[in-house]
């Protein structure tokens, strides 16, 4: 069990190689190998998270070189939450992709395994340079996932993301250069011990560069412009994973660097009002763009932009708190929101994918009668939408409520009003989807022809054509149903997952245990 942290990175990487070798021999086995890898890796992730929650953190020194010199991989209470998110997101995506017929493309499975490698690495990396390596691995695999479909402008959108991500890399390295010049170390825990003596301006520049760099990855306004076109281009499964899982890991990295590495709550309290403004801008811009959006996946992309704003607002609410426990209580709200968004956004992408496949169109206004044509997908869509809008008693309400209460303590009424405004706007655009889905329109009943139905008239309904829907419907329905019901029931059932979340919040809100874990234990 001593080698668990490194296995978390090595296993998916190994399966990625294995999958590409199998693809050369027998393409039909690719899905199976990918799925096996996903399950094994998820089991490892969950076991690790369980062990950490039970026995405390683990440190793995690669090559047995101790911390300040060698490379360390760290799993603590904060990491364990994200390990669970990766595990669930990966397995669910694999099941969904296999049932939606996406797994036949060998590259998709390989890329998913690669991005999971990168995300696991981001979660466990204990020093800034390894974090950078995994971020870059994530960039490469994300670009390929975006540009995977062979359509006209898809490559352009992947390329745009690549440019954005390179800029993100440059900013990251800039921050690393500043920190390395000041401290002479790259291990996050080692930086944390000396960051108090650094000039404040250096900390500020490093923090700003990290925010800009990772902000590009998780779509911080105005660096979100790559996201909607990229999601439109990418497949729905890839989108669900990128938005539901990958985006959370970039937030994880940012929180780790800010709270553990730079100890911003002590060295740079002015960061939190700044984060608040960024978060509120994200909420407003994301929701307004979503309001104007007629296309399904772009809508969800903008909704994701807005929810990054909620999470940042929740983080900003620790402003002025000096007691660790109180800080943990505030950060808990942001972490619940992360969990909520991961759950609901994945469900929404899956549901949208089903309806898009049925209607052969991702234009929302063409989904007339979707509720009758795809009842399970629509039910899941409605429940998940209620949760993500934050209607009680879903989990979304509780995270929104906790964020609003804590941000009211720190910054007064205006952020609460912005959160309320966001609720109204998001209710408008999801109600619009619901209205079209419930419309007594001409739902296509049988197999759908390959043609796009331009004006919503019945020309597309022709009994059987060669391009049919995938036969396996059962598992996606189960997945969507589970996602929606968990989102609904986790509101009242929040105490069940609270131990994990509270431990994560406590771990991120104080740097000392982390330093003791990495440097003290050796």
């Amino acid at each position, binding site marked *: 069990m001593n080698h668990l942290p490194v296995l978390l990175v090595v296993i998916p990487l190994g399966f990625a190689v294995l999958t590409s070798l199998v693809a050369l021999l027998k393409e039909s086995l690719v899905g199976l190998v990918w799925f096996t890898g996903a399950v094994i890796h998820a089991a490892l992730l969950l076991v690790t998270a369980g062990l950490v929650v039970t026995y405390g953190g683990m440190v793995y020194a690669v090559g047995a070189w101790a911390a300040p010199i060698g490379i360390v991989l760290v799993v603590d209470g904060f990491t364990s939450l994200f390990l669970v998110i990766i595990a669930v997101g990966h397995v669910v995506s694999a099941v969904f992709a296999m049932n939606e017929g996406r797994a036949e493309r060998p590259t998709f499975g390989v890329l998913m395994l690669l991005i999971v490698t990168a995300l696991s690495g981001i979660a466990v990396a204990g020093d800034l340079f390894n974090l950078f390596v995994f971020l870059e691995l994530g960039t490469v695999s994300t670009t390929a996932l975006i540009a995977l479909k062979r359509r006209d402008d898809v490559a352009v959108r992947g390329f745009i993301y690549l440019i954005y991500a390179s800029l993100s890399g440059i900013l990251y390295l800039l921050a690393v250069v500043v920190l390395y010049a000041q401290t002479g170390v790259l291990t996050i825990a080692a930086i944390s011990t000396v960051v108090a003596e650094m000039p404040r301006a250096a900390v500020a520049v490093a923090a700003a560069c990290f925010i800009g760099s990772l902000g590009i990855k998780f779509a911080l306004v105005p660096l979100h412009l790559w996201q909607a076109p990229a999601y439109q281009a990418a497949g729905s499964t890839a989108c669900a994973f990128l938005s539901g899982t990958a985006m959370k890991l970039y937030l994880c990295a940012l929180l780790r660097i800010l709270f553990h590495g730079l100890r911003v709550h002590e060295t740079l309290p002015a960061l939190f009002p700044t984060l608040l403004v*960024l978060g509120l801008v994200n909420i407003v811009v994301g929701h307004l763009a979503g309001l104007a959006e007629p296309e399904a996946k772009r809508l969800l992309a903008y909704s994701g932009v807005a929810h990054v704003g909620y999470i940042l607002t929740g983080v900003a609410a620790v402003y002025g708190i000096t007691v660790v426990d109180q800080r943990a209580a505030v950060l808990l709200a942001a972490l619940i929101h992360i969990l909520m968004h991961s759950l609901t956004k994945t469900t929404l992408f899956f549901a949208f994918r089903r309806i898009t496949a049925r209607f052969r169109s991702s234009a929302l206004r063409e989904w007339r009668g979707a509720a009758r044509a795809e009842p399970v997908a629509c039910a899941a869509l409605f429940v998940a939408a209620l949760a993500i809008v934050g209607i009680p008693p879903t989990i979304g309400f509780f995270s929104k409520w906790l964020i609003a209460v804590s941000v009211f303590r720190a910054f007064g009424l205006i952020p609460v009003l912005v959160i309320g405004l966001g609720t109204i706007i998001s209710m408008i655009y999801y109600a619009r989807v619901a209205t079209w889905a419930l419309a007594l329109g001409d739902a296509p009943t049988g197999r759908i022809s390959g043609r796009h139905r331009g004006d919503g008239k019945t020309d597309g309904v022709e009994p059987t054509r060669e391009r049919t829907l995938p036969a396996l419907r059962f598992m996606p329905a189960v997945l969507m149903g589970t996602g929606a019901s968990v989102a609904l029931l986790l509101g009242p059932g929040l105490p069940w997952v609270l131990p994990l979340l509270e431990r994560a919040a406590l771990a991120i809100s104080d740097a000392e245990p982390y330093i003791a874990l990495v440097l003290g234990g050796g």
Partner: protein
Amino acid sequence: MSLLSIAELTQVERSLLVVFCLVGAIGVASVSRGPGRSVTVAALAHVVGGLLSLFAGDLITLLVSWEILAISAFVVIRAFVIRPHSNGATVAAVDDMDRTSRVAFHYLVVQIAAAVLFFVAIVVQYSYQRTVRITALVPAASGWIIAAVAIKTAMIPAHGWLITTYGAVPSFSLVLLAAFSTKVGALTAARLVPEGGYTGLVWLAAAVAAVAPWMAVRQYSMRRLLSYVLIAQVAMVLVGVGLSGGDGPGAARDLALTAARFHTVNHILYKTLLFVVAAMVMERVGHDDLRYMGGLWRSMPLALGAGIVGVGAGIGAPFLNGFTSKELLKHVVESPYIGVLLTVSTVGTALALFRFLDGAFFGRASAPTADRPAGSLWLTVSAPLLALICVLGGLLPTVVSGVSEPRVYSAAAIRSAMILLAAVLLGWIGVRHSLLAAAPGSQWGEKAFTGLGARLYAAVTWGALGVRRADPRTLVGLTVVLVVVVVLALVGVW
């Protein structure tokens, strides 16, 4: 934070519970007659939402009840086709939705906006009190509650949603919809009274109570007329709520709240009765335009009798339930100005309801000759049942309210009410010919918010479409600007 806690109920609240159950049953039965059978579930959920708002022992449960009401009403409205009406669709045009969708969509958005204001209020309340239990409101929260309740109870000028929805939905779903939403808004305000009382709510509500009936008089659509009367009655409830928690002694405060709840009980009963009568009439004649009705007294004596009881209760005729709670409210009111406003309201309500009754049953048009269905069983049963309850409530006010104030129901009060109503009746008989023929169909203020909303929506759409292009050339600039701004913010503040 407990998710669901149950409040203790006083006697008048228990009466509310009974009335909610009764009216809810009538409403669900009424809705389930419609073409969509699955909508019964939503109708039941609507009733559950209303009941939950009575039981709710904490703020979050109360918010849940608001949301349940909004979403279930959305489904109920959505389920039945709304035909275009000559009286103008005033809902903001949203893309290419049909009329039913637009009405439902508009309703939902307004209700969610009210719920969000309520959310803001309870965030503020929780932040000061550190509990979600229902306690006296802090002053910082009361403004938000007033705003939320003003939308939920359709106080003018936020009444557009109610008129466009209630004026458009089929009569059988209107019986259900009109029963809960606004009343729950007013009752929520009654649950959450601030320490020093609401400031300004009395005057807002009294002004609305005085103005709304006169807008009702100008309607020729039955549903819209009754909707305006409903607004006036709910405003009267809010007058009672606004009077509670003032400087007066505790007993007077409690009496004001009891009066408000008592009026809610009576209002739900006779308003549902009126909507049931309207539904019977609409079923008979096939439209709801008072200008082209009349002569129904011959063929629908039951509806006429029930309508007379309903109208009598609505205008506060003695020995009917509306009188008892109105007198209790007047007893609570101390300011003479508010008393005058309430009298203006009574006169206007009387005129509007006379117009309704006179136009439908005795109006200029002759009775329809076409053989239409004679009305369904549930209508024929529920109308006399509700009428009977209205009479009993008028005769036994203490049973419902738990308040025995002999002074309130004195001979002098009965006499003055009789004189006022008789005067209005005489006045109505004098002007009925000209008023029944006139058809101004006032829509004042109904478009104020929806028009603004449509324009805002268009502007936002235009603006957001403009920034959708992911141009890599602007990226470097944006990134640099962001980082510099963040650095400046960080360096500048400390």
